[in-house]
C-alpha cells in the first residue's frame, strides 16, 4: 500500500537530551514533508525534502531523506521545552487529484 510508518509513537526526554523520529515508506517517495503540532494547536509545515540523501537544518533540527527515498528522519539536538508537540511526516500527493498521506506522528514530551 501507500502507508507511511512513523516511530516511535511517544518519546519522553529530559530537557537537553536529543530526540529523533523516523518515517518509513513501503514505496519510493518523490519528496517528503514534516509538520509540527503544538499541544492544542494545528499542524504547521516545517520543511520539505526532495533529493536523495538530502540533509537540511533549521537551527537545532536536522532533517534527512534516505538515499533510496523510502525513509526520512527528524533529529532535534538539545531539546528545549518549546520543542514539545507532535511531529508528523507526510507524503505529498503525486498529482493534484491524489491525497496527502500522514504518518501517525511522534509525540514529544520533555521533563524540565
Amino acid at each position, binding site marked *: 500500500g501507500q502507508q507511511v510508518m512513523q516511530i516511535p509513537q511517544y518519546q519522553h526526554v529530559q530537557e537537553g537530551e536529543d530526540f529523533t523520529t523516523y518515517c518509513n515508506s513501503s514505496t519510493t517517495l518523490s519528496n517528503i514533508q514534516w509538520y509540527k503540532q503544538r499541544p492544542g494547536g494545528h499542524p504547521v509545515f516545517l520543511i520539505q525534502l526532495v533529493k536523495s540523501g538530502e540533509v537540511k537544518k533549521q537551527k537545532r533540527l536536522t532533517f534527512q531523506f534516505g538515499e533510496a527515498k523510502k525513509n526520512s528522519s527528524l533529529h532535534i539536538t538539545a531539546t528545549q521545552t518549546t520543542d514539545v508537540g507532535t511531529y508528523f511526516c507526510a507524503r505529498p500527493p503525486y498529482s493534484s*487529484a491524489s*491525497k496527502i498521506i*500522514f504518518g501517525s506522528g511522534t509525540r514529544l514530551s520533555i521533563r524540565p
Partner: protein
Amino acid sequence: DVKVTQSSRYLVKRTGEKVFLECVQDMDHENMFWYRQDPGLGLRLIYFSYDVKMKEKGDIPEGYSVSREKKERFSLILESASTNQTSMYLCASCGGSNTGELFFGEGSRLTVL
C-alpha cells in the same frame, strides 16, 4: 499572510442533528482537505477536493459528506451526528502542484452528546 479559517472552534451537538463545518481559504488553492484527529490515531483523511464541485473519498468517509461550490470554501457535513463523531476536525488546503505544503485551519472541536 495565508489563511485557512474554520467557522467554529467549538461545537456541541446532539445525536441525530445535522452539522455543518465550514472552511474558507484565501490563497486560491485548488486542493482542500478535511481530516479528523483523535488521540493515538493521528490525522485521518475524511474527504478531499481538487477542484470546484469535485470531491474524493479519503480513508474514513462514512457518515460524512462534503460540498465545494466555490473554490475558496469546503464544507464538511454530518447528516446525522453520532457520538463516535466527537472529534477534532481539521481543514487544510494546498496549491495545485504535487509538492505544495498544507496550510491548516485552527480546528473545530465537535462534541456530540
